[in-house]
């Protein structure tokens, strides 16, 4: 069709109904979040304060970063369980190379900047390895990344013999500890990463290719999309993001424990899935995953403010996740 002929095509706006219907999956959690806000306000006067939101944001930032990483992989129709071990091992090795022997380091005392590069490099390298093995050598994603999860977590324990690394230089913990405009740097960074990922998925052709691959791999390949390259690239990027998230949490607690990252992956999957990222791939948006992270953060915050026993918080989290999944299922049924 020529451009001249296109001039006469009347541009019709996307009907509002269609836009809303398309977003129903992503916005399903908004009412639940609103309810939590109301409950929070009635629970404690400390809830609706900048300090509390700042704390909650800090609490959720590292998790949110890993949720972005896992969501990208899920959208391509795969997944990586070992992100939680990258989250633990990468900052562990970075810290180990830069702190003194007294603080459980190796004693090499590398420059902290170099340490941060090592952290990101390890994340990317593990992600690349996982991606290559799953995409090119056709390993089953579940069993392969489970084995990697166990292996990397074991290395994390072994390197420091189960001890905790501390006394890290300020630049290494800046990301997790510093504040900008009253809010933690980690929260700003995670918010920016969410936004960047959302824009990338919406407007970049590689982002659209991720949806196409997850939606129908054969069709994507037939359309000339470099399927393998993009899938492996996403694994690599996700590994790097998980490593940065690990650096955040290390900065927040000013230490790297031998257990950092334990059980994190369950919460990551829960946040992504209740936020509308489909496990079978090709469906879901970053705004949805973001609401998933916010919901889980608020639930935890409200429970803490209500002085719920820490021993009960996990059970409450599980119940909330089940309810959210039930809601998502109802929404899916209504839509069809």
């Amino acid at each position, binding site marked *: *069709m020529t451009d001249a002929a296109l001039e006469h095509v009347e541009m019709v706006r996307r009907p509002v109904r269609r836009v809303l219907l398309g977003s129903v999956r992503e916005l399903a959690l908004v009412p639940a979040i609103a309810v939590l806000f109301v409950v929070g306000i009635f629970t404690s006067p400390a809830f609706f304060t900048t300090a509390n939101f700042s704390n909650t944001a800090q609490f959720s930032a590292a998790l949110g970063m890993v949720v972005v990483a896992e969501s990208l992989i899920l959208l391509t129709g795969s997944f990586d369980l070992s992100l939680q071990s990258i989250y633990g091992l990468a900052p562990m090795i970075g810290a180990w190379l830069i702190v003194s022997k007294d603080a459980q380091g190796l004693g090499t005392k590398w420059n902290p900047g170099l340490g941060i590069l090592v952290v990101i490099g390890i994340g990317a390298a593990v992600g690349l390895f996982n991606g290559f093995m799953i995409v090119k050598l056709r390993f089953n994603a579940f069993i392969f990344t489970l084995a990697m999860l166990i292996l990397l977590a074991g290395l994390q324990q072994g390197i420091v013999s189960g001890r905790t690394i501390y006394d890290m230089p300020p630049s290494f913990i800046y990301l997790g500890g510093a504040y900008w405009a009253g809010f933690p740097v980690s929260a700003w960074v995670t918010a920016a990463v969410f936004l960047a990922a959302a824009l990338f998925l*919406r407007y970049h052709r590689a982002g*659209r290719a991720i*949806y*196409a691959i997850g939606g*129908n791999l054969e*069709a994507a390949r037939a359309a000339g*999309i470099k399927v393998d390259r993009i899938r492996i690239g996403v694994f690599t990027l996700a590994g790097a993001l998980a490593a940065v998230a690990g650096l955040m949490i290390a900065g927040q607690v000013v230490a790297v424990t031998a257990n950092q990252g334990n059980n994190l992956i369950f919460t990551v999957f829960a946040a992504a899935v209740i936020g509308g990222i489909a496990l079978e791939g090709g469906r879901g948006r970053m705004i949805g995953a973001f609401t998933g992270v916010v919901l889980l953060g608020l639930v935890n915050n409200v429970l803490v403010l209500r002085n719920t026993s820490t021993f009960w918080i996990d059970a409450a989290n599980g119940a909330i996740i089940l309810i959210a999944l039930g809601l998502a299922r109802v929404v899916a049924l209504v839509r069809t």
Partner: protein
Amino acid sequence: MTFDPTTEEGRPEHLRPPAAEAEAIWKSFARTEALQDVSVSVLPGECHALVGRNGAGKSTLVGILTGLLKPDAGTVRLYGEPAPAPGDRAAWQQRVACVYQRSMVIPSLSVGENIFLNRAEGSLVRWRELRRQARGLVLEWGFDLDVDQPVDELSVEQKQIVEIARAIAIGARFLILDEPTAALESRAIERLFERVRRVKASGVAILYISHHLEEIYEICDRATVLRDGRRIVSAPVTELDHERLVAAMVGGDLARTSREQAAVAVDGPPRLRIRGLSAATPLGSVENVSLMVHAGECVGLFGLRGSGAVTIADAVVGLVRPSAGAIEIDGGVGYVPEDRHARGFVPTLGVDENLTLSILDRLSRLGFISGPRRREVADAMSERLQIVASSGEQLLSELSGGNQQKVVVGRALAAEPSVLVVVSPTVGVDVASKEVLLGVVDRAREDGTAVLLVSDDLDELRICTRVLVVRRGTIVRELGTPPWDRHELISAAEGLEAA
């Protein structure tokens, strides 16, 4: 170098090169020669039919013309230029678009995005521009599509339109339609033909593949017939009458089935009676089908893929729920499914266990299975079917296709059913196993089992005592006395009446 077919348009027609030209193509896989010295040329503005029975080499030729397969010998030229390098998908896509049998759309994305899939210029997608172009294209061609609708909400027909729209959007001047009517209703087929005529009128060359020969006479200009990997004939359809077309597909020899089955006289009530069966499935709907099978009879249901023949079998064994009609069965049903890998056997269990899977209640007491009794039953069955296995413990996954299929048939017979439903029992098995399998089914029939055999393989029909031809969901012909006339069977199944 960019490719611009429009420069060809000023030239007089007889000087224009063919849109696609395959010359002396040879291609073999492992042991089979898929294509031997095949040449085809498709002209701009022409709809060219590619005809042949299953295994004739059509899919291989399509693979070569779309750049997905590399020929062993021979050349492909597109609009007079040598074909792009095998790995250069982008270049192939610019020249050839193919609408495959299986859907190649992305369900979670919108119609507009599917039309312009992976076609952003530069690295960013300009949504306004994409929607505007998609709308323009949809309006220009009169497609009934909302460009903002997610594709998973569309009907099969609409998804196919999306694929055709994508081919047009790419600007490919050579379009391959692979069985485009297989999943469509008759009104949708009419609309598809209208679109094909429009695309053709704009100068696009079309290679049209279909099992339904009457479609070819309706919209194609020329036809090429393949048989056993060779080109038998290429000619204008006006010069190919029905007789000649079917003869080219089937071959001159073996006009009648080899072994002759004696006609069987039946009396008494039928073992299987189907009355007014209607069922809708994506694999071929059926409407108001009635038939009877008596003890000692083998009734063949002959039909092409998607004709509904398999749906009738699935309805009898309860895998498809009929929307109307009644199925009456006197006694138990044994079933040999079409896809033995998916439904036929458990690959991780041994021969004996697979053979006796459906009769465990008879071999067990309080739920505990008697090993010796099972071995006894399984051994007898193994001998009857001449199953070649190292032992009764050998896993099914380790057996050859022919022996796996024998186990599937054995399991169906183990329960001594009064009705046996068999779907394409010898697909993909070697010649010797084929003889054994057909012999066993035939013996079961002689012993008084009522057999319903669904097949699109003429050779399997030789054990039938009666054949019903199914086309587009109804029984269009009954052949009562063997031997069967191949031309008559194929003409009826393809929707042609032999002149």
